[in-house]
């Protein structure tokens, strides 16, 4: 079996090269530019020299052509927003579909992926000669990365490039990294107004946690940045403790927290589905409960 690795970031280039060993005896990387070439740990590295003034997307034809010629069995592509586009275009050129956001990959290439907003896991496999996956090394078994890194220079195929990049601005980094936090407080529609976030933050500070939210709070109310929206199309967490405040517990949200070790729920509706998933809960007014908790744990 032969696996191709294509990554956008150097750490994932190295990690995926290592992981691919569990699936293929030949591991070959496709690297755009020197940084990714140097990060590869493979038998062979197909190096495409950086072209001036082109977008990363403009390498799609070159990569697809390489896959068509070299015929790997598996193509592992790092999950990023940009790669979602590049992988989809490659698949279209090769007449197949990408298995995206893989959460588990069996040795025979059968992949698992969350569907219906996280209500179920789908197991699927490619029917054609090449299987393309979008994934991160965190879902694969770890393997020591190694390889002779034989460099093969690949000529750039100039596409009919039509999209012009006028400017790129670095995004202001959200100070919060929810995935790294062991204690997370999540809020939903039960919070009446934006000003009440002060109360929520005071509570989060008292228990040394970070604040996340459901999709409506980030995308409709825009009270919190999109980076802290928890759910199937947002961040997926596995903290020690998750405190769900004023959120009903729809599956689209709870899929992002059901790996939490302990779930605590505060909601005035006894019928809220979140209580079915909670270790500890209180059916009551969050505006009474939260200040009491802050008082108790802030000492």
């Amino acid at each position: 079996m032969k696996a191709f690795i294509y990554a956008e970031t150097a750490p994932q280039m190295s990690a995926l090269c290592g992981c691919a060993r569990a699936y293929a005896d030949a591991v070959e990387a496709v690297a755009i530019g020197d940084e990714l070439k140097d990060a590869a740990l493979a038998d062979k590295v197909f190096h495409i020299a950086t072209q001036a003034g082109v977008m990363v997307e403009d390498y799609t034809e070159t990569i697809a052509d390489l896959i068509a010629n070299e015929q790997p069995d598996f193509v592992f592509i790092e999950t990023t927003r940009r790669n979602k586009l590049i992988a989809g275009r490659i698949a279209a050129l090769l007449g197949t579909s990408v298995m995206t956001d893989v959460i588990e990959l069996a040795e025979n290439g059968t992949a698992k992926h969350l569907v219906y907003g996280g209500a179920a896991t789908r197991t699927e496999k490619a029917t054609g000669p090449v299987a393309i996956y979008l994934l991160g090394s965190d879902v694969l078994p770890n393997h020591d990365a190694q390889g002779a890194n034989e460099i093969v220079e690949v000529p750039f195929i100039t596409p009919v490039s039509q999209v012009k990049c006028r400017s790129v601005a670095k995004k202001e980094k959200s100070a919060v990294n929810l995935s790294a936090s062991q204690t997370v407080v999540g809020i939903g529609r039960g919070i009446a107004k934006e000003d009440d976030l002060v109360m929520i933050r005071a509570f989060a500070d008292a228990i040394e946690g970070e604040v996340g939210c459901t999709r409506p709070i980030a995308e409709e109310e825009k009270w919190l940045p999109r980076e802290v929206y928890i759910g199937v199309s947002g961040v997926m967490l596995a903290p020690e403790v998750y405190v769900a405040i004023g959120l009903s517990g729809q599956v689209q949200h709870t899929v992002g927290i059901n790996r939490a070790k302990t779930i605590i729920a505060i909601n005035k509706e006894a019928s809220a589905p979140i209580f079915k998933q909670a270790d500890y809960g209180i059916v009551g007014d969050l505006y009474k409960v939260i200040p009491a908790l802050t008082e108790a744990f802030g000492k």
Partner: protein
Amino acid sequence: MNVVACVKVVPDDQDLTVSPDYTLDFDRARPSISTYDLNAVEEGVRLVEDNGGSLKVLTVGDSSIDDSKLKKNILSRGADDLLMVADEDMKAMDAHQTACALKAALAKIDSYDLILCGDGSADLYAQQVGAQLGQLLGIPVINCVSKITVENGAVIAERTLEHEVEILEIPMPAVISVTSDINLPRIAGMKQILAAGKKPAVVLRATDLEYAALATIEVLETLAPKETDRKHIIIEGDSDEAIAAFIANVAKVI
């Protein structure tokens, strides 16, 4: 400008139930517009309001999507007309098949400047159809677009990636997938719902199109996860005593 918004009809996941053998039961789930595609429709409405032209909604799927209530629902969101391809041969298509079917359906449309897709479908959320469609059509395609303006016949798009925001100039025709926070889809009022019944809706079968794409992905099983065992220690009420008891409980883990 003539805009086509592609939407997927999915079973409403609010009505999904899990059977004892962990398979999903769709019997009570009504066909509904995939949530994220509402943003594509809304953006189309907004672009036509600002720039003139027309908005067509395009959808492909199995025969169950040919449902009058659903068609009215789609058209009440502000589109001028609907092109639907409904056929049992188009049941549970993968991303490649869907893109091939959309391309074949687009061949039935006179002209278009912009094709809009949502961020991903509410059922599979693979985020692949827009990318495949643009490639198959051989026209520019960009995903993650969080703002669209039109300038001298080109789309100026703000594209939000993980760590950066790009400003792109995209010549038309093009395929653009919009983010779920690009706009807030309007809710149709009674007037819009009544007007929707009078808007043109064309329904075609697979045989009306030049479409013959075989499945590229085989689905082996779709199962709900086994629920994590939880303690379920729930206190009813928010009296001082109840809150104190709750604090005593959570103090074990906080």
